[in-house]
């Protein structure tokens, strides 16, 4: 469970994926404070997503996917709360029910031979083609990370692709009784 110079007796807890959602004042340096805490204390960031969610109040929402035992993740939450511009931290996994979604853009090497197969896969996964001036073949897919993983795996078997992913954002399915 712990971070200490001495051996820890407690290796029994299971390490798994957690999604943290952090509401912060959108002020200079706030993201550096958050990610600096992770690297400085030796925690992991699997993915990170940040955008302003309230213009007039200058609030941003940071979604962080991390891996660790519950003890470690609890410690991460407490360390995040020490950061002055942080309003609130919640562990969506711990609360039980949350929905998450991610966006990926995929630039696909398309030719006559693989065209049909690729469109089939894209249709199946509801990936949407985005028109662009260079006439390259770019698909957008949104949804659960696991579904995007499967989509990429299948397309990869057919042809060469270039991918960019947003990392998941997530929201609790409970009725909004939150602060602010």
């Amino acid at each position, binding site marked *: 469970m*712990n971070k200490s*110079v*001495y051996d820890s007796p407690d290796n029994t807890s299971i390490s798994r994926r957690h999604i943290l959602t952090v509401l912060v004042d959108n002020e200079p340096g706030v993201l*550096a404070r958050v990610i600096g805490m992770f690297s400085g204390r030796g925690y992991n960031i699997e993915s990170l997503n940040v955008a302003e969610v309230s213009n007039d109040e200058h609030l941003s929402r940071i979604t962080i996917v991390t891996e660790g035992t519950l003890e470690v993740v609890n410690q991460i939450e407490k360390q995040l709360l*020490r950061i002055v*511009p942080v309003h*609130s931290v919640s562990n969506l996994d711990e609360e039980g029910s949350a929905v998450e979604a991610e966006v990926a853009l995929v630039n696909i090497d398309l030719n006559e031979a693989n065209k049909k197969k690729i469109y089939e896969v894209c249709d199946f996964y509801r990936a949407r083609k985005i028109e662009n001036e260079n006439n390259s073949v770019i698909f957008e897919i949104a949804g659960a990370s696991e579904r995007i993983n499967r989509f990429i795996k299948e397309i990869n078997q057919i042809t060469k692709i270039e991918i960019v992913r947003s990392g998941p954002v997530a929201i609790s399915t409970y009725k909004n009784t939150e602060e602010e």
Partner: protein
Amino acid sequence: MNQEMTGAEVVLQSLVDQGVEVVFGYPGGAVLPIYDTLFKQNSIKHVLVRQEGGAIHAAEGYARSTGKVGVVLVTSGPGATNVVTGLTDAMMDSIPIVCITGQVPQHLIGSDAFQECDTTGITRPCTKHNYLVKDPNKLSPVFHEAFTIAQDGRPGPVLIDIPKDVQFANGTYTKKENIIIPPHRLFEPEIFKNDKKIDEVVNLISKAKKPIFYIGGGCINSGPKAAELVSQLVELTGAPATMTLMGLGVLGSSHPNSLGMLGMHGMYEANMAMHDCDVMINIGARFDDRVTGRLDAFSPNSKKIHIDIDESNINKTIKVDVPVVGDVTSVLKRVIKVWNDNNLKTNQSDLKLWWDKINDWKKIDCLHFTNNEKEIKPQYAIQRLYELTKNKKTFITTEVGQHQMWAAQYYKFEKPNRWLTSGGLGTMGYGFPAAIGAQVANPDALVIDVAGDASILMNIQEMSTAVQYRLPVKIFILNNEYMGMVRQWQELLHGGRYSESYTDSLPDFVKLAESYKAIGLRAKKPEELDDVINEMINTDKTVIADIWVSKEENCFPMIQSGSAHNEMVLSKDQKQDKLSAEKGKILV
């Protein structure tokens, strides 16, 4: 109500509004406008140090000896990077500091300008919070928030970086009382939401057979009332109490329930009692690794209560049974009230058995050392220092190493805020500038820096500061020509290979003092010691007392790295078994 003035004037006005009396600093290009404004006023005193590192430790000493915020003013680039050690020190030991740094003008930021550095970037992990202020109108709100954050919750350092053009620009000054700080930016105590926790605390203590109080620096940070409440609770319960390095002075050394310091070089009886207790009441301490020793053998059979203002300390390294997040003073007030309201008592016969056991451990006499007629034993030097200064208003600061542990063991503290030492970060070079800060804050007090010959050289340049301001700070060097603690670890854990721990070519400390127009004294033999100490105390000048002590004395008792509380090494059985030496070597 709100006034127009330059950024530099806003800085000074904010300091005045915050009740600041002294600023420790060093000028330079990027803070010249502030120094110009400083020149034109009389309400704030500036103490010019000789290196910025000295300024921040002096501010720490000022803060720790008064409970007020210490203020530092330095320039950009090297001025800012030189305070990084002190900021980290203040962060680790929870010392309220506001550090003002100059920055290059905004149009030069990012151009690798002369004396430019990313100050907020560098100091982000070693401050509670920091700011780069780009708008002169925001300066006063930032200052007032910074002073609040520095003292709020668990105190710590806050840094304000101000580009030079912002210091020149005109802006509006907003008064302290017109600033509203959003509550999420401050500490929100959980305690007020949950009184049940207090019942659990009281319940556990009242049923304990072998209770112990484990008292930390939080009891000092919480203010003078906290120490009173701690003694009150200790007396109500009749339980023994031990203090961390940072908590020394909360409960007077002479208090019958005090077992003294615990931890790596703590008292045998304190560590044994921690190991064997059935209820541990941690008040304002954080289960530091110097205190716990091996985690899986730390107090294995106890229920643990943890009162801490910083929630991230709860269950960080040691799992506790009853966590209470809150300020020591307010929590203890409730605990004592509930205790008294329910007319609770601890079981006296159980407690007597517990004290009998503790008194048996005391018989070991863990601080025993063999005195010597030819050489001054360092322990003896501290004992004499205590005896000859105990009736004065004395502040003791230390550097870091063996001398620090001997001071903690053999000097007896009766009051909080009188003992100033770098506990968390362990900064050599802390003690002398901290003594300067404490002396500035307490001009009539006796301020002594107990130092080692290696540590003192890390900030020796501050002699010039001490002499300039006629600060009668005393430097009491336990001179063994070694980095003593490094030497001790090399002896015990590295086969006696004394790699780079001997200091050749030490200065003649008496002549060194004289060259700064201070007083230099020296004691080489035990019979000279008292005279030197008395002369040191009685002069009203800065003094270096160079005390030649036994060169190879080790600091005991000791819990070696990787050992448990009940595996202490005492001076008489210093032989270390090979296996634990191998295990301990890899740890810090």
